[in-house]
């Protein structure tokens, strides 16, 4: 069965500021979509609004997964319906190792699940101690991203949002994780929305479609060649070409808990 995530005219505010201003996107099983945009364009906000984080207020639009409206459903229901979010800054839960988390998440029985976790850990070069420790608890950035990918691989959602899976990774680690994601799109037909602001990830992940988010709107979409054009023009150049004036949204710093800290 082909799954389809459809985002239509999605609007959201945080602390009274419009941060998503009518986003349209469609991601189907086995496809890889890249969502690119500068800091403050609303990328992470979109990821968390899709997942149902309560800090954001949805003010319009719709998000459906295989025809089921997700807006209004709690986060865990969205996840159970097949949506997954690999976070840019995964949250530490001390004392809750990934095995316990996945057992609660998947209701799969012990030995089979344990074997699956171990297989993925080997594949992603994640050392045993990170399976024993609470998830993300005193993990390095690279270890966190490996663990996010491990969970993705074990849970095999219909649609996965990867929020800057590439941040904090060296080239070799990036290649390994992107390779695993790519194989999941082929073997398990996972549909991927990969949020990034660098083209590096896309060289590994080979997106079918590239979308550019500026100031809370998808301003243009295209094939992989759009990423190459971005590399040449930069966001400002592309915005000028498209006649778009605003790139980022000035949200009050404290208002958006999941915003980029900036670089």
């Amino acid at each position, binding site marked *: 069965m082909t799954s389809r995530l459809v985002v239509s005219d999605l609007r959201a505010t945080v602390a009274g500021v419009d941060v998503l201003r009518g986003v349209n996107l469609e991601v189907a099983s086995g496809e890889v979509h890249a969502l690119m945009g500068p800091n403050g364009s609303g990328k992470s906000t979109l990821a968390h609004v899709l997942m149902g984080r309560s800090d954001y207020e949805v003010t319009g639009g719709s998000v459906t997964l295989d025809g089921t409206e997700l807006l209004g459903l709690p986060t*865990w229901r969205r996840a*159970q319906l097949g949506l997954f979010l690999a976070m840019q800054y995964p949250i530490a839960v*001390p004392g809750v190792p990934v095995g316990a988390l996945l057992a609660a998440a998947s209701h799969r029985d012990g030995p089979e699940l344990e074997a699956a976790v171990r297989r993925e850990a080997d594949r992603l070069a994640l050392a045993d101690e990170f399976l024993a420790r609470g998830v993300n608890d005193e993990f390095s950035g690279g270890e966190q991203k490996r663990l996010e990918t491990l969970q993705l691989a074990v849970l095999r959602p219909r649609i996965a949002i990867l929020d800057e899976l590439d941040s904090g990774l060296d080239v070799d680690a990036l290649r390994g994780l992107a390779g695993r994601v790519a194989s999941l799109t082929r073997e398990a037909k996972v549909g991927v929305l990969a949020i990034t602001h660098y083209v590096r990830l896309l060289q590994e992940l080979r997106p079918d479609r590239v979308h550019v988010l500026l100031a809370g709107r998808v301003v243009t979409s295209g094939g992989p060649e759009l990423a190459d054009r971005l590399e040449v023009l930069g966001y400002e150049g592309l915005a000028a070409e498209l006649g778009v004036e605003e790139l980022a949204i000035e949200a009050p710093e404290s208002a958006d808990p999941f915003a980029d800290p900036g670089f």
Partner: protein
Amino acid sequence: MPAFTPDAARALGGHDWLLARRVAAAEQLASVSWPSSAEEIWRYSRVDEFDLERYQPREVNQRSLDVPVLDAGLASKGVVVGDLIDVDDSEAADWLGTCSDASPDAFTVLHDAFVVGGAYVRVPAGVVVETPLFFEHRSGGDGLASFPHTLVVVGEGAEVTVVDRFAADGDPHLCDAVIELIVGDGARVRYVSVQEHGPKTWQMGLQRAHVSRDASLRSSAVALGGDYARMRTESLITGSAGESDLLAVYFGDGDQVLDFRTLQDHAAPHSRSDLLFKGAVEDHARSVYSGLVRLRAEAQHSNAFQTNRNLVLTEGAGAESIPNLEIEANDVRCSHASAVGPIDDDQRYYLETRGIPPEDAEQLIVLGFFDDVLNRLPVPTLAAALRRTVERKVGKLRG
């Protein structure tokens, strides 16, 4: 007719030395001044509700203490395990009261007056007891008072692990307990207490350890039951380079009040103490943690750490956390941390993004919160059982 009289104390029988100690305390009881919550050390307690007249002491034949069977090889090495009421060890009389007499209050006097017997372990110098020794102190009975006692005496370089389980039934009951841990030079003692009283039990307790030179104590407490359950946990380091680790987990629900007063008392140089008390409260339960680190002038080059963390799971529940330092030495390292708060929203959200419903997520988070204490319990099977017990208590949050 007043129940807590010297005659009643005398009638409990046992060794002469025990009887003498009991009667002396019973005579002192008449003039003891009962505490009130106006005193700082009783602040946030429910001592004002306490009424001794509601209780009477248990008879000798009403008590129940399960004593572990001692390996013959250990007995031949001089290890003694038994019930204080009839234990055959001339040293027991000398050791009884060593710790508790150094930190008396009205409830230790009451305890001394009506203690019938208790868990007794003495390990002579150099002997290592590999297998944990389990004692079960069962008490209860409508309107009765019980006075469990534990006395652990460990000689130079000896090692032992002792586990006490205290459980009173569901009737209104007073449990006034004293635990004494005497850790000799270079000895290693691991002590675990598990408190699973019924919902109408009032507990007043003192656990006090004296830790000698190069010795190490690790004490772990699990406190789950009681209506009002108070425990003073004290550790005095008397010898250079002595070490004391005090750990506890507690979980209160319903209208329970769990009350902990701790003392890490350093009276020797190069000593180290660490304390980690972690608790959760739900429904209308309350917890109190009040802890003091004392570094005396003679405790130079010592380190002391004190951490108390509390999860408040429902709006009606509450936790007090009051860490204190008293430092008289000028070359020491000391830190304390305390936290009271609800379950972290971000943690819950993270688990929810994996498809875990919020109630299950909370159960995972609470168990995870306790994990660093439960993981350090010296008896892994006990840790697994307690994890399930806590799981059940947290599971009550569902629905």
